[in-house]
């Protein structure tokens, strides 16, 4: 950290050395340096190669099923891998993914925002580090262990404390119909909420910290309380970055596989259409995890599952690119200005 402040204090030093490097690159372009730079560039480029190859391979793998079913693949609801009677429509799983992720966002984002505000603005500095470390540990717990905990522990919490009361008093509303069982869309959504908390809160916190102090100082100078200063000066300024953090959380929720697979109840076909919070469902990711090893390699089944992967890829790519753009606007711009 010391070095960073020093760099900030003497900005001319940086530009001097960069200029120097450029001069050296040109004058003494010894092959060792060039080779090293080239090697590093090629290896770094592998990230882009991987993403491009992914698009190519996934498209190629799902062509058979896309050719046969066309647009029905994404709008159909039937799912039957039995040979001769094959039918693959993935609408229920797309909706299942969207609904569970929405639950995750509705439950997880306000909590994450609260955590970010507490850790960035409110917490005494003694507890800041240990608390943020504990929150980060939530991200360290493997997904499959969330699933194990979900099946044997958490599902009963949801069933007894949420689903039973709601179904007793509000059971007449269609979206709350079904037997409270604990292995359903609601449980999957809430587990996802827990799993996105570390991502969303740490990125939000980074965004909040990046807000210039003058924002808060201006609010204080007109007599704002701490909360008012945060609300007026910090939150409104950081809005787009916070939206980016939430969308990043959405990206995690959409792609999360194991925990969801273990608690969502794994319905297939029309039964998987998410009509009620208390019924079993299926997401794109959980469908792939459940059926991949059972698929007959010579049938259309693997191709259909790869097609699901392609749709998931498109979702994840769009969500992540959008989120990164929003976050970069705040965080990177400020970093760039400081350096």
């Amino acid at each position, binding site marked *: 950290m010391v070095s960073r402040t020093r760099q900030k204090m003497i900005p001319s030093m940086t530009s001097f050395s960069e200029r120097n490097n450029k001069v050296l690159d040109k004058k003494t372009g010894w092959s060792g340096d060039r080779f090293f730079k080239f090697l*590093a560039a090629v*290896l770094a480029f592998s990230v882009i190669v991987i993403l491009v190859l992914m698009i190519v391979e996934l498209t190629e793998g799902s062509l058979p099923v896309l050719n046969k079913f066309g647009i029905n693949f994404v709008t159909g609801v039937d799912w039957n891998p039995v040979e001769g009677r094959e039918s693959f429509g993935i609408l229920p799983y797309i909706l299942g993914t969207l609904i569970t992720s929405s639950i995750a966002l509705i439950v997880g984002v306000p909590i994450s925002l609260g955590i970010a505000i507490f850790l960035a603005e409110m917490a005494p500095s003694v507890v800041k580090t240990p608390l943020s470390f504990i929150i980060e540990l939530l991200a360290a717990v493997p997904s499959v262990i969330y699933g194990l905990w979900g*099946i044997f522990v958490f599902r009963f919490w949801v069933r007894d404390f949420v689903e039973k009361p709601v179904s007793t008093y509000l059971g007449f509303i269609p979206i709350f119909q079904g037997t409270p069982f604990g292995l359903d869309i609601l449980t999957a959504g809430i587990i996802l909420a827990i799993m996105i908390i570390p991502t969303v809160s740490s990125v939000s916190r980074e965004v909040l910290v990046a807000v210039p102090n003058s924002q808060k100082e201006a609010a204080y100078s007109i007599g704002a309380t701490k909360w008012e200063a945060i609300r007026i000066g910090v939150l409104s300024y950081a809005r787009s970055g916070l939206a980016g953090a939430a969308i990043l959380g959405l990206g995690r929720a959409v792609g999360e596989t194991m925990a969801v697979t273990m608690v969502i109840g794994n319905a297939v076909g029309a039964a998987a259409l998410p009509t009620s919070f208390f019924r079993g469902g299926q997401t794109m990711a959980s469908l792939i995890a459940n059926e991949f090893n059972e698929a007959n390699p010579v049938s259309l089944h693997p191709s259909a599952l790869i097609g699901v992967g392609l749709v998931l890829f498109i979702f994840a790519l769009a969500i992540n690119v959008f989120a990164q753009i929003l976050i970069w606007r705040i965080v990177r711009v400020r970093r760039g200005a400081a350096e």
Partner: protein
Amino acid sequence: MTSYMIRKFKDKLAFILSFLCVLVAIIPLGSILMEVVKNGAPALSIQFLTSPPGAVGEAEGGIASSIQGTLILIGLTSLIGVPLGLMSGVYLAEFGDNVLGRSIRFFNDVLMQFPSIVVGIFVYMLMVLALGSFSTIAGAVALSIIMLPIVARTTEESIKLVPNSTREAAMALGIRRWRTIISIVLNSARSGIVTGTLLSIARIAGETAPLIMTILGSQWFFAGLKAPMDALPLRVWRLALLPYDYAHQQGWGAALILIIIVLTLNVGVRFATRGRYTGR
């Protein structure tokens, strides 16, 4: 009540609510750790840790082959992922101030958040179909793709913390740029890079989804790079879905070993580098 008191009250309320959010997030973590220890500890025995899984339905056998598989995967993945990630990070930090660097950095961030199951399908198409069987090496490649962006990012961040005066001193002594980077810059950034690498290992050790379609899982010990293999997270999943009580207990036992590996890496790293590195 004056409006000032209302505003003070709102201020207090905001503090309490945001603190409650932190508590709400800690409850699941506490519960998970407690349950894993409570249910997993009784399953542990020498026999459980040293023998491969028994026949399905019989309460015998252990998770030795799964532990072995996870360790092999960690080793192989690091062998592929760390050099790649390290060099990417070096490029981004030292030469990355241009269009290519910026786009690589952007897509690196995108790949870092990518669904691991899609990576699994990708490697299935790329390697399992090409080689004709599920294999250990395919699993390692899939996990490397997950590890690469994490290592690249942390390497870049740590290298950027190395003061420019260090580079200039090396330059003044007439040391070549690549030598400077390898022997001096990377050396100064060592602790941050090691931290990032260990955290990425913790991350891939718990990955399950991409292993389903690459290493498949197996009842036996490691049988060569081109054969299927078992791994701890995969074993936890399979055991949890079996309809037997003994399987559930074994599942908790395997989860306990897995979480010990992952948390040791996480907590150990934080304590070892306390105060020196505080990146995301």
